[in-house]
């Protein structure tokens, strides 16, 4: 029986020669991840069930990224629970204020996710590491507790959708536009219970940061994971980040896919998602001119170097419009430093942006940029659900970093190509 790339990784981790879609398997895990919101619940369940030992001190990552530096007393108490647990169990990959970054940027940066891995994380955007050719998927706190105890997780082997990328993307188009376009095509449940497998000649031209952005939002169409083939760019990214053996899996040529979707990058336009679903997409031409109050550039979707460079290129020598609050958040400390060295921080601050320490912050309406009633934001984050960044009357438009930056300058939704 031919297998998809995802099926091959799952088979290998379940110790099986073959798996087929729908089969229930138990897979060995290379990493179990949790954050300051989900890990406290997992730790409580872990202890309540009477477990007293973790399966590995190296293969668990605890990342305090959502509400840190702690926004209030309750968040501080949650972080303390995770901190104590990490100390008690000698968790090697524990990231606290000072070293912490947004988990899905931080984990690949530290070489904790590599090609061929099977990873679960108590965070829905754990699917990000598919960019590296890993199987990774979001689960809940109880699964995380079970994973920390046993190093395994149950999966139903998914069927897959093949996404073929052809052509080459144009200026001001990024990975974000590719994934928003795809979600617009198939809907927020278009890949429910399934994998997305990206392929085609268009893939090789995509940077790793583009691929991270695309895999990151696989969950926004309901997918279990979104995976890319491993090529020279992947290998170059992994180089120096890990001592572990990289396992490269390729789908069988006759692997079955439930459907094939082709996206022609030659004609793809910058794309935005209007409130209140990521699938509510428009090309930039159809959205420009919409009024705004806030711009957010950051998150596990678009807080990486390429994103900051694209935003800075637009903001360089320009000013954020009077009516706009523009908040820029690098995803990790490494990115923060690099942005300083490249002079990007100076550009952001001189143009009138707030530049923050790494945190999830406004992405989930936690802190560092919560909206007021009836306010509109354009944001490079991944969800524009009702109330995600503030009260239920506030509105979020999702976009790529260049569109967000251009909108900050224009004071309304804008096409970067129109800036003078």
């Amino acid at each position, binding site marked *: 029986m031919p297998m998809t790339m995802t099926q091959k990784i799952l088979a290998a981790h379940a110790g099986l020669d073959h798996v087929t879609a729908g089969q229930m398997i138990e897979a060995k895990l290379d990493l179990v991840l949790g954050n300051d919101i989900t890990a406290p619940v997992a730790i409580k369940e872990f202890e309540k069930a009477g477990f007293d030992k973790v399966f590995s001190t190296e293969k668990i990552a605890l990342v305090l990224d959502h509400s840190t530096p702690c926004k209030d007393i309750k968040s501080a108490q949650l972080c303390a629970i995770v901190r104590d647990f990490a100390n008690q169990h000698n968790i090697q990959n524990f990231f606290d204020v000072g070293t912490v970054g947004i988990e899905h940027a931080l984990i690949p940066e530290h070489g904790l996710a590599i090609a061929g891995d099977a990873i679960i994380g108590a965070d829905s955007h754990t699917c990000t590491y598919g960019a590296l050719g890993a199987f990774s998927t979001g689960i809940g706190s109880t699964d995380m507790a079970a994973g920390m105890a046993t190093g395994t997780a149950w999966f139903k082997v998914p069927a897959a959708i093949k996404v073929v990328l052809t052509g080459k993307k144009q200026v001001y188009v990024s990975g974000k536009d590719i994934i928003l376009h795809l979600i617009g095509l198939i809907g*927020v449940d278009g890949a429910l219970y399934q994998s997305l497998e990206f392929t085609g000649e268009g893939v090789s031209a995509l940077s790793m940061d583009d691929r991270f952005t695309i895999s990151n939002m696989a969950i926004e169409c309901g997918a279990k994971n979104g995976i890319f083939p491993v090529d020279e760019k992947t290998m170059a990214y992994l180089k120096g980040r890990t001592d572990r053996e990289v396992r490269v899996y390729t789908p069988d040529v006759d692997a079955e896919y439930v459907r094939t979707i082709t996206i022609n990058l030659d004609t793809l336009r910058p794309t935005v998602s209007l409130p209140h679903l990521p699938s509510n997409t428009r090309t930039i031409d159809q959205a420009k001119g919409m009024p705004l109050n806030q711009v957010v550039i950051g998150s596990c979707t678009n807080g990486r170097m390429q994103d900051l460079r694209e935003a800075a290129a637009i903001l360089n020598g320009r000013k954020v419009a009077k009516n706009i609050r523009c908040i820029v958040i690098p995803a990790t400390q490494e990115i923060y430093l690099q942005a300083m060295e490249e002079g990007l921080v100076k550009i952001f601050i001189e143009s009138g942006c707030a530049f923050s320490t790494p945190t999830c912050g406004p992405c989930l309406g936690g802190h560092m940029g919560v909206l007021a009633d009836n306010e509109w934001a354009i944001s490079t984050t991944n969800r524009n659900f009702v*109330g995600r960044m503030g009260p239920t009357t506030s509105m979020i438009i999702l976009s790529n970093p260049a569109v967000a930056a251009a909108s900050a300058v224009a004071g309304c939704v804008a096409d970067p190509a129109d800036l003078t």
Partner: protein
Amino acid sequence: MARVYKYQDNVDTDVIIPARYLNEPDPAALARHCMEDIDQGFAAAVQPGDIIVAGFNFGCGSSREHAPVAIKACGVKCVIAKSFARIFYRNAINVGFPIMECMEAAEDIEAGDSIDVDFASGVITNNTKHKTYQAEAFPEFVNQIIAAGGLLNSLKNRA
């Protein structure tokens, strides 16, 4: 008599339990804000044994287990939907909260209908409309987890 709360497609975890309340994961605290951003009166009005009926992709969005926990802590008996987002589906099973996937029931049942559910057989009875619906059966391994009282108990039993 179980009352029905009916919602549309894509009820996401941000409206089930908004992120601003995640800093207090105690089930009773979560229950006080359950469904707040989609149905303000829900938490105050819901009674033990009530049922939520919804469309496609219920529980989409974040992985927060706080969502099924909040609904369960309100005393809601089960959620019947056309489909569930996969992480919510997994979480509900793992915390021992029953969910039923049934197109016809989710379409047909209206707010105010009197509903009985039988988890073992998957049969949903609409007493108001004098109709029955058959929900999708769980895979066997899921039944084992539920029978054990959740994922961690089932793992403990194996050890």
